[in-house]
């Protein structure tokens, strides 16, 4: 179960087992504790890390106070975390003007003080 309505349970410590990979058809499913493969319904799944560098496919800024506890403005992106798996994710930038389509991303913790709960993504070049 989600531990908080604000921040999902996924943290950087979950990155090695973020996705499920289907032994039957090879499809990736998020999250890795999904009940079965989203393509074929098989429950023979292996927990695997992201098989690729995540890529930013789209992004917007949330301006309204639409999620309790999430203080706008917040940048939300669609990040491809595996072939065919594009998930909405919080993007750790102050301003969407720093982002470009199809840029490589990296997963980071919710904030510097808390890497155990919540994943956000930031442009890969921001590393270090």
């Amino acid at each position, binding site marked *: 179960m989600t531990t908080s309505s*604000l921040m999902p349970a996924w943290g950087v410590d979950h990155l090695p087992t973020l996705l499920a990979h289907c032994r039957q058809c090879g499809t990736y499913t998020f*999250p890795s504790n999904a009940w079965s493969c989203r393509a074929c319904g098989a429950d023979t799944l292996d927990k695997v890390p992201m098989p690729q560098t995540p890529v930013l496919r*789209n*992004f*917007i800024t949330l301006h309204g106070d639409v999620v309790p506890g*999430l203080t706008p403005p917040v940048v*939300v992106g669609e*990040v491809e975390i595996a072939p065919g798996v594009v998930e*909405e*994710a919080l993007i750790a930038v102050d301003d969407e003007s720093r982002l470009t389509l199809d840029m490589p991303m990296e997963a980071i913790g919710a904030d510097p003080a808390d890497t155990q709960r919540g994943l956000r993504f930031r442009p890969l070049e921001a590393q270090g």
Partner: protein
Amino acid sequence: MSRLLQERAVHVVGIGMHPYQFPSETPYVHLGLTAIREALKDAGLQWPQVQAAFVGTAAIGMAAGRVMLRHLGSTGLSVTQVENASASGSSAFRLACQAVASGEHEVVLAVGVDKTGHARRASGSDGLSTLSPTSNLPVAKFALLARRYLRDGELDVEALARVAVKNHGNAALNPYAQFRKPRTLEQVLASPKVAGDLTVQQCCPRGEGAAAVIVASAAAMARLGLARARSPRVIASVSTSEKLGRGDVPPIVDMVRESSLAALEQAGIGARDLDMVELHDAFSIEEIVYGEAIGVCQTGEGAHDLARGDTAIGGRCAVNASGGLIGMGHPIGPTGVGQIAEITRQMRGEATGRQHPGTRLAMAHMIGLGSVAIAHVLQKTD
């Protein structure tokens, strides 16, 4: 269902509404009874003549139907509550049509009624966590879709805002609408931003209300002396749900395309034969992409067609002449039934002030969270 409606004609013989409105203390029973009594009067029927009722609601609670309907008289009719998110009313209408088309009943009520505030979504109880707290938030999903559409079509934000200008304008002419004020392009664009390029006037409001539709078989119409010319025929009914995405087409858009195509095939017509469409414009972008998916507009041409007035009342195909979800409102349970009421009113030529001339073929298309799609095609009866 695919041949049932061709084999046994189902007609909409009565329509009634309680205006959509902002949340109030009014009990849902009053909202629902107002719409049902208006539909009975409109059809010229008495309550004991109704053999079954399907009650579309998402937020009132368990067993809302009989609690409300007993005030019309405890006739012993079949009562079924239907919850299918935003498509609850459309699903109630579909079941009412099936009940008549199957031959089980001859006169059936579909009523949508809802209040805000008590709905709980199952998506938060599936035992799985998302990456983002916005993942089940429609406004974020559709703001992302809008951004993609504008970027791919090299369009500016005015393209989206024109949907709201048209639909607020239509709603201003609809006495059952929640919003009754026309809005200018400048006003729509200047209203507070919610997500991405979507401003608050491009998003449907929260609200409550009721809509009722009575359907009957041709045999019952003849026996009861109901006027054929006032009673459009339902010539297609389709229900689908989302498949996995393929390529760059968002799964929800694919779902709209496939469900509407199936409905058009069942009706034996093409999208260009439609004079009117009522569809799920909870957010402005939806009207543009669904209009294209249904085939009212060519792919990539939705915003241009809108700007040219092709989808306005009096245009080639009026989209959301009622004001749509943005202007008329989206009380959830009633919304899909209200679409059928609007189409019926238009086919009768009784949509005073917002009449789309010559409406003979129309589609009602609704989406429910999840996502599911329900499509109906109605044909004017001579």
